[in-house]
């Protein structure tokens, strides 16, 4: 049987009519969380098994909110199925009548349009339609074909799934069941016949009765002990599970503590790193003197200028002084060739000559006002002056100020900074490099921080962890106490049971010996044969069950080794386990013959998948389902796998050619503008068909905007 299409009309997020057209082989539905994958699954489930309650919750809010349309509208899910060259369209629908305070819905009806091999068509309703539905997709098959989420894959979880269910659905072993009851019944009857016969003969009646009573007594005791043991064993198992959970809790809490510490550490590093990253380059221009980066040439020019000024200054001053000196000299030379020293002739002589107006040196008159007279006056003056204490006479200067000295010292001291200026370029480059390194460092820290935070979220999601460790500790103490109590009492009970069993066995032997002596031989013989018949029936059935389990186990391991290519190297083991009054199936992983403890989630999922696929293959071989193959529908079965493993898994499923519809959020990502995209890697996933579910412009606060679109890829 394959599903050809599924149509959803106004069903939850599927506004109006939306259709999935499937083909045989692998069909992949991609969609981010909340975009409609699970609603698709729920749609199909509702069609197959849905009940009549709360239909209003299934109505598309967007359709409800349409104001311009007050007419009643339909809500439906339909599925087109092909089996044995026959075509079936199943449609479950109801009408929504009014919209005042929500939806008022009619009851639903199931309709089937069935076209047979000859092309003849018939319409069937309700019960008949249900019957056809169960024929095409039997409930016991559905149970092993549709899974919502990774957790549901574990169908054998804590023995919830009875072996007999599986057998009933998929194995011929079910036929052997009835015979066990028959065999038991016949044996009991035969035994009773013998007993009655013995009782009638008076010989050993008394002894016989006594023994029978004892046997009954002890058997009752035995049974009650056994049932106590069963109950206690169940309790023990539960306690052991709780202890395991607590352990995981501690591990999680421990891990959380460690991760929290790491997160804090990274955050600290991050803020330190951020602080160190330089952003005030403009201020550094000033603070670090980077402004002077190209100043060297100007410095040199300045130095040269000041230097030349200084030289010029000296030169001019020199020249000036020389000039001045020269003038002085020539002035003096003009007046005398070699002037007589002062005081020659003497003052008295000079005064005498002056008063007589006659120079007695050159023997001529020197009248008042004549050159000779004036010269004599001058000589007298000079002499008088030379006797006076000397006054420092202010020399005439070229330069009034000395601005240059300050400039000179400025030039001098700044020249010492030239080395610093030369190193600025390198300093700037170094600062940038350092900054780049800091930024790289920062982004490394941010990546690490993100990783830890994701880990943290994962663990929290798994375990609602952060529960009070103290309360868990006290529970664990109590559990451990109970555990050892039960184990002790079970030990005692077991001993009791063993001794009682021995007693009963001995009593029965004694009874047998009386029987054989006293009862009619053919009754004894009949009894013996029927005992053997019962044994044969029971043991043959067990054998069939075991064969069936082995078949599943073998197939599961074949598949397992394909899915799990690069990881775990062990195998799956299926075994029977008696729990209470039914047999359950245990699914374990073995590595090198030893039980593999605590497999991680993805390994568990792979194990479950392998078993489910094995069951599906076996189901297709079972004669009572004439149609062979059945599709399987999975909603997000590989959440724990990651992208690469999911890819490998999907490629593998594709190679089986059976119709598998798998919905996943893997491969849905976002581009740099935040828009949803399908990751490149998806193009290498081999499949028959793929669909992309997207919610159109969704407003979180307004549910009436929800509308999922289906885009084939």
């Amino acid at each position, binding site marked *: 049987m394959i599903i050809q299409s599924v149509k959803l009309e106004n069903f939850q997020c599927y506004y109006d009519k939306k259709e999935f057209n499937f083909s045989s082989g692998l069909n992949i539905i991609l969609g981010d969380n909340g975009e409609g994958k699970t609603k698709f699954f729920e749609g199909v489930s509702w069609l197959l098994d849905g009940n009549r309650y709360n239909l209003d919750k299934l109505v598309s809010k967007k359709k409800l909110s349409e104001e311009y349309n007050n007419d009643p509208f339909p809500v439906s899910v339909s599925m087109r199925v092909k089996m044995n060259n026959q075509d079936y369209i199943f449609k479950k629908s109801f009408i929504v009548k009014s919209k005042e305070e929500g939806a008022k819905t009619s009851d639903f009806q199931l309709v089937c349009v069935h076209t047979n091999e000859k092309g003849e068509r018939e319409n069937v309703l309700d019960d008949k339609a249900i019957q056809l539905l169960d024929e095409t997709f039997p409930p016991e098959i559905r149970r092993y074909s549709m899974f919502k989420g990774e957790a549901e894959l574990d169908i054998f979880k804590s023995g919830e799934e009875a072996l007999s269910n599986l057998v009933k659905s998929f194995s011929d072993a079910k036929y052997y069941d009835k015979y066990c009851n028959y065999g038991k019944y016949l044996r009991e009857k035969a035994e009773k016949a013998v007993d009655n016969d013995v009782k009638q003969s008076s010989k050993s009646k008394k002894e016989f009765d006594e023994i029978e009573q004892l046997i009954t007594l002890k058997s009752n005791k035995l049974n009650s002990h056994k049932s106590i043991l069963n109950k206690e064993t169940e309790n023990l198992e539960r306690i052991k599970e709780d202890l395991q959970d607590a352990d995981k809790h501690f591990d999680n809490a421990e891990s959380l503590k460690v991760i929290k510490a790491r997160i804090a550490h990274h955050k600290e590093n991050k803020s330190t790193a951020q602080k160190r990253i330089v952003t005030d380059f403009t201020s550094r221009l000033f603070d670090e003197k980077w402004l002077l980066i190209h100043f060297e040439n100007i410095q040199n020019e300045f130095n040269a200028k000041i230097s030349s000024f200084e030289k010029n200054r000296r030169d001019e001053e020199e020249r000036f002084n020389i000039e001045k000196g020269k003038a002085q000299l020539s002035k003096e030379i003009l007046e005398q060739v070699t002037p007589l020293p002062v005081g020659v002739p003497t003052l008295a002589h000079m005064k005498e000559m002056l008063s007589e107006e006659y120079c007695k040196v050159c023997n001529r008159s020197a009248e008042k006002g004549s050159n000779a007279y004036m010269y004599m006056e001058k000589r007298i003056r000079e002499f008088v002056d030379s006797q006076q204490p000397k006054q420092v006479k202010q020399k005439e200067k070229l330069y009034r100020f000395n601005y240059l000295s300050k400039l000179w010292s400025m030039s001098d001291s700044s020249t010492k900074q030239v080395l610093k200026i030369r190193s600025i370029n390198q300093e700037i480059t170094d600062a940038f490099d350092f900054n780049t390194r800091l930024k790289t460092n920062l982004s490394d820290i941010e990546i690490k921080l993100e990783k830890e935070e994701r880990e943290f979220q994962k663990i929290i999601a798994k375990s609602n962890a952060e529960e009070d460790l103290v309360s868990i500790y006290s529970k664990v103490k109590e559990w451990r106490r109970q555990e050892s109590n039960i184990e002790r009492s079970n030990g005692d009970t077991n001993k009791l049971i063993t001794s009682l069993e021995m007693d009963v066995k001995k009593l029965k032997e004694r009874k047998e010996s009386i029987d054989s002596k006293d009862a009619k031989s*053919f009754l004894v013989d009949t009894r013996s044969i029927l005992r*053997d*018949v019962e044994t044969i029936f029971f043991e*043959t059935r067990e054998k069939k069950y075991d064969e069936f389990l082995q078949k599943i186990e073998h197939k599961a391991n074949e598949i397992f080794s394909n899915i799990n290519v690069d990881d775990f190297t062990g195998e799956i083991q299926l075994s029977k386990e008696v729990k209470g009054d039914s047999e359950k199936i245990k699914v374990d992983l073995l590595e090198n013959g030893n039980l593999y403890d605590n497999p991680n989630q993805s390994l568990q999922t792979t194990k479950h998948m392998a078993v489910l696929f094995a069951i599906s293959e076996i189901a297709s071989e079972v004669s009572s389902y004439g149609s062979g193959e059945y599709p399987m529908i999975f909603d997000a079965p590989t959440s724990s796998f990651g992208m690469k493993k999911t890819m490998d898994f999907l490629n593998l499923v594709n190679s089986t050619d059976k119709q598998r519809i798998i919905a996943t959020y893997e491969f849905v990502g976002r581009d740099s503008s935040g828009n949803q995209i399908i990751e490149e890697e998806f193009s290498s996933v081999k499949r028959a068909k793929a669909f992309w579910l997207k919610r159109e412009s969704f407003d979180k606060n307004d549910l009436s905007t929800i509308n999922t679109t289906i885009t084939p890829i």
Partner: protein
Amino acid sequence: MTRKDKLLKDYLAHPLIQDKYKITDRRIPKNVDDGMMSSSPIIKAIAHIINEVEYPSKSEKEVEQLIRKLLNKSPL
């Protein structure tokens, strides 16, 4: 092979048949009809039971009595 014949085959494959009842392969009947005629009481019993279970025509009690009668009549 019909289902009841398969059942007979499976049941008669049990070791008890060979070990305790010493019935060799040769003597194991191929189908239920033959089995019901067998001279071995256990084979006869099993064959009749199968016949009744797969095609019930009698109540359990009646079957039981039938078995008894069969067993009574056949020599061991």
